[in-house]
């Protein structure tokens, strides 16, 4: 459960629907976000994440339902909502010909801050986002990570109480992504409420206090990262097989540990088997069986299920099915079921 010293929800969404022509982007979603916390909206492309963000930021009118941001109705009082929100969308919405400083100062003026205050605010943000060295260079010379930082800084010019980040790290290299995560954590520690959409399960796991999983315009699951993982049912024993040709034999050797067939990743020569709450007992058994079968492994570990496993269990398809996710790897379960994406390089 969320533990925050807040007084009620900052965002309340009820029964939101939206269609574009014959496409139902949202089929009635409900959720709320406690003040000062991060909600991760997780889902594949086309799930309706961006539509939800666009409705909450007053860019699109919903067909039905209500959405309140700090008690202000996005439909009836869009101007009042605009005064307390910040938005950073999927692309860096900055003016490339202008310098980083000019970008921020002009936004300050458009937020109707006094001229002097606009300058000060730009300076503060440039310092905070480590852009001072590049402050007087046209933004077109910025790297992808710098451009995203400037874009995020731009969304903070007016010190919004509620911030919306639509896939803030899509397209960033791992190093920039880690930097971005640090910045986002700091923001919320300052009291900002944050709604963040992502296709990266890892990202929701890292940042969000609560997660909702969205698929085909519906919320199909909600809870903390841990409660979602519990839904999948227990831990996973995973190991690599030294001799690729013995992958099948390895899977057979551990098949008795679970009612569910082991999953194979032929490319990486990895076997994973779901072992419920058998934990270390299962590990010992797996080692024995593999030893008896004369199979050499490259590292054997017990891991908690990843959000990939969760998504597969909930939807029957991968989160990143349509996406060319940089971390995507293929794994085949012995049987006809669809395959999960393997998650690696987790921070926690």
């Amino acid at each position, binding site marked *: 459960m969320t533990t925050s010293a807040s007084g009620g929800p900052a965002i309340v969404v009820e029964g939101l629907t939206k269609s574009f022509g014959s496409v139902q982007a949202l089929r009635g979603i409900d959720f709320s976000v406690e003040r000062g916390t991060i909600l991760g909206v997780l889902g594949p492309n086309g799930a309706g994440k961006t539509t939800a963000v666009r409705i909450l930021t007053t860019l699109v009118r919903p067909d039905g339902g209500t959405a309140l941001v700090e008690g202000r109705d996005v439909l009836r009082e869009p101007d009042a909502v605009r005064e307390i929100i910040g938005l950073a*969308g999927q692309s860096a*919405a900055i003016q490339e010909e202008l310098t980083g400083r000019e970008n921020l100062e002009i*936004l300050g003026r*458009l*937020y109707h801050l006094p001229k002097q205050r606009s300058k000060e605010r730009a300076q503060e943000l440039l310092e905070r986002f480590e852009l001072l060295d590049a402050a007087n260079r046209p933004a077109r010379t910025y790297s992808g990570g710098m451009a995203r930082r400037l874009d995020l800084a731009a969304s903070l010019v007016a010190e919004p109480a509620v911030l919306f980040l639509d896939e803030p790290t899509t397209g960033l290299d791992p190093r920039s992504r880690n930097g971005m995560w640090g910045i986002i954590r700091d923001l919320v520690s300052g009291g900002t409420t944050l709604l963040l959409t992502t296709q990266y399960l890892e990202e929701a796991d890292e940042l969000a206090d609560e997660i909702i999983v969205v698929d085909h315009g519906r919320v199909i699951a909600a809870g903390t990262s841990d409660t979602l993982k519990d839904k999948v049912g227990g831990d996973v024993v995973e190991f690599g097989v030294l001799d690729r040709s013995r992958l099948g034999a390895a899977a057979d050797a551990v098949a008795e540990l679970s009612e569910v067939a082991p999953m194979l990743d032929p490319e990486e020569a990895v076997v994973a088997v779901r072992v419920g709450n058998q934990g270390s007992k299962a590990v010992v058994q797996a080692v024995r069986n593999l030893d008896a079968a004369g199979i050499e492994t490259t590292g054997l570990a017990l891991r908690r299920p990843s959000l990939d496993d969760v998504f597969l269990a909930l939807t029957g398809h991968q989160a990143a099915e349509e996406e060319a996710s940089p971390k995507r790897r293929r794994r085949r379960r012995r049987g006809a079921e669809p395959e999960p994406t393997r998650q690696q390089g987790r921070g926690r």
Partner: protein
Amino acid sequence: MTTVATPTRPAAAGSHHPGAWSRFRWGVADGLTVTKRNLIAYTRTPALLVFAVIQPVMFVLLFRYVFGGAIKVNVPGGYVSYLTPGIIGQSAAFASFGTAVGLAREIQKGVVDRYRSMPMARSAVLVGRLTADTLRMILTVLVLLGVSAAVGFRFHNGFWPAVGMVGLAVAFGVTVCAVSAYIGFAIRDEESVASFGLIWLFPLTFVSAAFVPVSSMPGWLQAFANNQPVTIVIDEMRSLALGGPLALHAWESAVWLVGILAVFLPLAVRAYRRV
């Protein structure tokens, strides 16, 4: 119960219930801020300045010295007198290229989304773009006048009609910019707008009295050329510059320009709202 210090925005706190006057003032201020932003961007985009200045100048020189000898006209001062109002009108129309491409690009990059999620005037993006483009267009027109004068163009009708010609050229350019703004908002894709969004400008400006007398075209083409707004506006500019009947084309020009604006400005505003 614990209370959280919610960050508040000091300066915008008063804009919750704006009166009409304050809304107008902010509208002007926001429009000017966006104008300034666009002008800074122009000064840093040499390609755009080339497009705005050097290309029209090349047109003047090419038409004056390459085609000019073959085109027979009956106006005081010869072809250069005939050409200058035409090329100024055409260049003013082509200035709208930047309007459509610039707006489409802002939408594509998400800049417009950010603006629309802010408590600023809705009109600012369009006003700022049209104002900046008008200023750029005036620069183009003045450069063209200078170059044309250097290659032999003279006003033959006195000072105020000359000012009137420049004013009409700019009004014409602004009108075409309004059409382009609608196209930019409607297509929303920079590359598409750049490659075919303004292709209609070519037949419209070339099948007109801008460069050659309409009487030299085949009959079926004359029917179009004689009755389309570019010819009407450029004929009026020519009368202002060189002397000639003013009244008829003045009315027709005004009706065309006001009519086009009346249709396309609301369309552009509507397309902007629906972005």
